[in-house]
């Protein structure tokens, strides 16, 4: 789980840096909304990853001996990350398809 952190932060910068580029001049289209929602979601998923890291660290350091809490935090982080990656892949695919559309 710990090695996901750099990816998450790079994703975050990519996502925030991507929004103006993807945003058409007319603000508030469906696609830009979706991308913005994904950007908000990244921070939530990042919070969950950090919570799961913290609970693993607490368990290993002996501050907490409730292994079920660790299981819960890690399962949530894992699932939310998978949701994020699935939605992101779909969005990027949609973007690519739009860009490759012959005019």
């Amino acid at each position, binding site marked *: 789980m710990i090695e996901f952190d750099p990816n998450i932060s790079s994703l975050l910068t990519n996502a925030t840096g991507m929004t103006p580029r993807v945003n058409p001049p007319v603000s508030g289209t469906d696609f830009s909304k979706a991308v913005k*929602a*994904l950007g*908000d*979601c990244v921070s*939530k*998923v990042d919070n*969950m990853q950090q919570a799961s890291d913290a609970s693993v660290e607490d368990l290993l350091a002996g501050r907490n001996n*409730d292994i*079920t*809490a660790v*299981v*819960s935090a890690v*399962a*949530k982080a*894992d*699932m*939310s990350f*998978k*949701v*994020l990656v*699935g*939605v992101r*892949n*779909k969005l990027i695919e949609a973007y690519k398809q739009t860009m490759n559309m012959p005019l």
Partner: protein
Amino acid sequence: MSVEKVFGPVDISVSGMRAHARNMEVISSNIANARTADAGQGQPYRRLETIFRTQGEGASGVTVDEVVQDNSPLQRLYDPGNPKADASGYVSMPNVHLPVEMMNLNIASRAYQANAAILRRYQRMVETTLELLR
């Protein structure tokens, strides 16, 4: 998009795992003290029982409400040589019955496994749903 909304089953099954682990702790205390003639105030150990309670209204997790003493009569063991024996040669022993505790242990470990299985199955379900995105 609220990712937290999909975690109900995770929280519920984890609460079940936690509660049954606590129950197992109580059962192991009962088994460890099955022959403890002195549990503090000169009285034999009394077996403990776990009371579960739901965490909230409707579909919710479980939590251990309290751990109560079983006040059923203590066992009487005929042991005239024991210094703690009374006038008729009987010693009071804890009201722990090992077969009963073994059954409770089985129930607790099966319940724990069932909750873990739900957690795993739910993770697979979410993954199946995400497969549909591809």
